[in-house]
């Protein structure tokens, strides 16, 4: 007789319910199963109306973020057997601090708007012509921002950050980490523009360095570190604006085939 585990999921349908009600499903436990497998089993065999997001099932698309026993996790990267000791139940809930559209699906348009606002793309004064060739970057220059570029926008960090929950206008860990990813990119010239956008109590200064975002990040992006570095940069920038009011010169970037 194989092991089973009870999976508790809050069911909520906006047309039908005023608030969620927990439903329990009995799911078999296989050694290699993850929580996503359990959800797929439920949808397949027990209740086809269960609604949740998933895609790549290998921890790269960022779709399947959920609260598993109160912890933000990717359901495709969380083994079911971890929770299957002594007949305990596992509680799977939608990511915290987001509105719930239905069952386990959260509303992300606010996050996407915040992300867009920080301009997470290369900002340059001039666009060099194609004839000048591609930008060159040394391995050291890549190391400056590579860690922050690993973000898969899974929003687990938003579910972990209490400031996001308490102040819905706070831009949030991933958005700031991604802004920093571009600030540190040697090809980018938009650091000042992004600083003007983020230098507000709802931007970097809203962060109180709880550090939960870094702890739950499945890609080890360390958004908390990114934000603290950003604060230090902003503070130094402020000091410089008194000491050297003439502004800083642009970064020089190498192009293949042409001297900088």
């Amino acid at each position, binding site marked *: 007789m194989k092991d089973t585990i009870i999976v508790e999921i809050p069911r*909520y349908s*906006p*047309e039908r*319910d005023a*608030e*969620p009600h927990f439903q329990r499903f009995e799911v078999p436990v296989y050694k290699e199963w993850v929580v996503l497998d359990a959800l797929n089993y439920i949808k397949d065999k027990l209740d086809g109306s269960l609604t949740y997001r998933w895609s790549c099932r290998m921890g790269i698309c960022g779709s399947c973020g959920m609260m598993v026993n*109160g912890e933000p996790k990717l359901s495709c990267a969380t083994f079911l057997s971890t929770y299957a000791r002594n007949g305990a139940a596992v509680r799977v809930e939608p990511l*915290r*601090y987001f*509105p*719930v*559209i239905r069952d386990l699906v959260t*509303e992300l*348009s*606010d996050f996407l*708007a*915040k992300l867009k*606002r920080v301009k997470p793309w290369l900002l340059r004064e001039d666009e060099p012509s194609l004839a000048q060739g591609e930008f060159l970057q040394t*391995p*050291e220059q890549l*190391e*400056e921002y590579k860690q922050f570029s690993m973000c898969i926008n899974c929003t687990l960090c938003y579910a972990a950050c*209490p400031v996001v*929950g*308490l102040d*819905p*206008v706070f*831009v949030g860990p991933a958005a700031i980490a991604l802004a920093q990813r571009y600030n540190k990119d040697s090809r980018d010239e938009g650091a000042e523009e992004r600083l*003007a*956008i983020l230098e*507000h*109590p*709802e*931007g970097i200064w809203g962060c*109180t*360095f*709880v*550090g*939960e975002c870094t*702890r739950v990040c499945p890609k080890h992006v*360390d958004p*908390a*570190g990114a934000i*603290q*570095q950003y*604060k*230090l940069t902003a503070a130094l920038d402020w000091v410089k604006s008194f000491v050297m009011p003439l502004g800083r010169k642009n970064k020089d970037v190498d192009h293949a085939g042409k001297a900088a």
Partner: protein
Amino acid sequence: MPEKPLSKAPIYTEFHPRWYRPHVSVYWWLGQRQYLKFILREISSVFVAWFVVLMLLQLRALRSGPDAYSRFSHWLQNPLVIAINIVSLFFVIFHAITWFNLAPRAMAVRVRGKQLPEIMISAPNYAMWVVVSAGVAWLVLR
């Protein structure tokens, strides 16, 4: 340029009015051990402020003369005051340890392209803590 808030309210699609929006309780910080540790860390600042109050009282006593200072020293021996100060000491040390452990995260120090491990920034901080404390103690106890 006037300071604008990033946005007045969160932006949600207009077409879904009936979402469930869970309410975040005032006791959110009791829900998780990490949140509680965070709030204790923040509360340590109150005990830091209490130390400054003590310092100001001590300076006032010093300024008022030997009798006033001896009255102040006597007050410091009050069991309630000692209890508060012992608790404060724990919190102030908690502040120091969390500070030295977290401060390196704000600095991405690179040597020859590789990021320095955090211990290399926090260890000198701890060392300086010991040296400075010993220096102060020596000056006072001499």
